[in-house]
């Protein structure tokens, strides 16, 4: 029961990945990232089967941080910059979405080659994780708005979080919290830098950040 529920949620994660690549509206991107964050928060509880106090704590911290605090910070940066859309990405929306779909297929193939312990067989964790990491990469490399790149980093981190589900027993509580804390401070620093980029260049277009070169 929890098995199929877990896979169902992982499919939601995969669909959200395609949505990230298909939309140009940044507000929608942030909303989808928040939703993915909430899904990620629920997953450890489902996989663990029973609710232990530190699983619960991490689930709550993840949901609050990825589902509300970080999207809130990004929304504020977006309001300040007064932009709505990612215009003219390096590769168009449809081609990136196709690339994302292709990446998902490849990650399923890649995951086939890696052996899993019996209780993880049949779960979509490894392909979902790699596909999410690839989606983050695509956002980072094909979009030019600094804020979209920050969302790309967030998605990449989500992919790694999914892989961490396989190590639920091994990951000490302190490290889990440390990773979340680093992510929070990271996005915090990024939003400060976004503020300065916007003030200095009157835009969040990273193509303007190209004066340092050989």
């Amino acid at each position, binding site marked *: 029961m929890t098995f199929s529920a877990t896979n169902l949620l992982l499919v939601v994660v995969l669909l959200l990945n395609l949505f990230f690549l298909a939309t140009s509206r940044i507000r929608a991107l942030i909303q989808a990232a928040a939703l993915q964050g909430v899904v990620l928060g629920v997953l450890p509880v489902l996989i663990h089967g029973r609710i232990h106090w530190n699983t619960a704590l991490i689930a709550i911290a993840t949901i609050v941080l990825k589902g509300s605090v970080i999207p809130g910070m990004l929304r504020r940066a977006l309001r300040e910059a007064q932009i709505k859309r990612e215009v003219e990405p390096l590769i168009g929306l449809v081609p990136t979405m196709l690339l994302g779909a292709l990446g998902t297929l490849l990650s399923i193939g890649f995951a086939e*080659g890696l052996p899993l312990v019996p209780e993880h067989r049949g779960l979509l964790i490894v392909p979902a994780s790699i596909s999410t990491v690839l989606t983050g990469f695509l956002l980072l490399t094909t979009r030019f708005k600094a804020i979209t790149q920050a969302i790309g980093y967030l998605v*990449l981190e989500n992919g790694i979080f999914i892989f961490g589900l396989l190590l639920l027993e091994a990951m000490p509580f302190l*490290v889990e919290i440390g990773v979340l804390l680093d992510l929070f401070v*990271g996005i915090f620093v990024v939003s400060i830098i976004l503020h300065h980029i916007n003030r*200095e260049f009157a835009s969040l277009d990273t193509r303007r*950040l190209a004066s340092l070169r050989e």
Partner: protein
Amino acid sequence: MLLPALIAVPLVAAGVAAALPSERWRPWMLASAAAGHLALTFAALTGPTERSLGGWLALDAPGRLVLLLLSVLFAICAVYAVGYLRYRREISNRVFVPCLLVFLAMTTLVACSQHLGLLWVAIEATTLTTAPLIYFNRTPHSIEATWKYLLVGSVGIAIALLGSFFLAYASLGEESSLLFSDLLARAARMNRSWLHVAFVLLLVGYGTKMGLAPMHTWKPDAYGEAPGVVGALLAGGLTNCAFLALLRVFHICQAAGEGAYASRLLVFFGLLSIGVAAVFMVGQRDFKRMLAYSSVEHMGILVLGVGLGGSGIFAALLHMLNNGITKGVLFLSAANIHRAFDSKSIDDVQGAMRRVPLSGWLFLLGFFAITGSPPFGPFVSEFLVVTRAFAAERFVVGGSFLVLLLVVFVGMGRTVLTVVQGAAPAAASRTSYRDGLLTGLPILVSMGIVLLLGVHIPSPLESLIRAAATLLETTP
């Protein structure tokens, strides 16, 4: 309780510095914290091995080496920073000073971390705390450099986290753990596919942080735009923390019997980095960016040495110390020259030996040292790497290494000689900066250390390096 104290001292100092209202006195927190840290480091190095936090924190030989380098380099940079910040009264140091201190605390945590996850958290924290340091000058260029640094650095380090997870999962079925001692003990039974992918991810991830080519793109921008003292700490301290992480991962591969696989990759990335750095150093007109490429080159030498194995590991560890301290000389003297001419392009900066004689001479000596001229430290360690390559009958590797070193010498030499020789061009702007005690003496001290390491390595240090090299080759 020494290890927790080593991390706590700079953290407390950072808190005090953030609370201090005086812009003039705040920089002195750097010097006092550095003195305390240095004293504790020597106590920890001479004392017995201590384990804290259930084995998560412990100082083994490689950790001791990195800690020693960090503490000495930070002390040098802290004294320099007091002098430097006097010239930069126009910018508040309220963020700068605490961030430098948190940097010291986090790099110390890296040095004594025995847990792959904790190590990752600490290295990521150093990325975040250095971002405001690079942004110190508040110019459009420095924003650009900070953005690239943050993005490339965070993505790289995220890949390293994925690699750490893969490594933990490689010991399928057994109760997974991220403690190095556990990973080493079960290395021989790890699943090869997971281990191979994990090593590549960790190499790319921590290699980004080290600045190995082709993941080095953030380096010239960050080192070019950051204040020289930050450049010195990044090039001499932070990169070596990432190198330590790679060493620990390499050790696990070695214990798993996959040393040959890992070595091939290390030699490849090492030579590639030296080659890419050589190409970009020839004709480089910005002398701070030139130093960044020099850092790429020397990170390449470090992984090349490890990849060659045997005495190459000893050479790499010795080179880590040599390069770290020499980078201090180069970045700090370059910063003084930058300050005296208000430019870092060789179109405007000429005749540094006349305008700032001490910094000019030290910059020149630092150049000779870093390019491997005797009698300075890097000569010994680079010579050992070459000897190892030929002893292991890797003639192509050793030969191309020598050729590339020559290219670097010529390329870097042209830029450095233009900077120090001749007379300042008439158009060069005049500034009030002249060499002073606080911005001169620390560089002189580090030059002395570089010379000492070249003439005679103190025997406790040599046995420490030997112990570290032996440890990295033993498999439980």
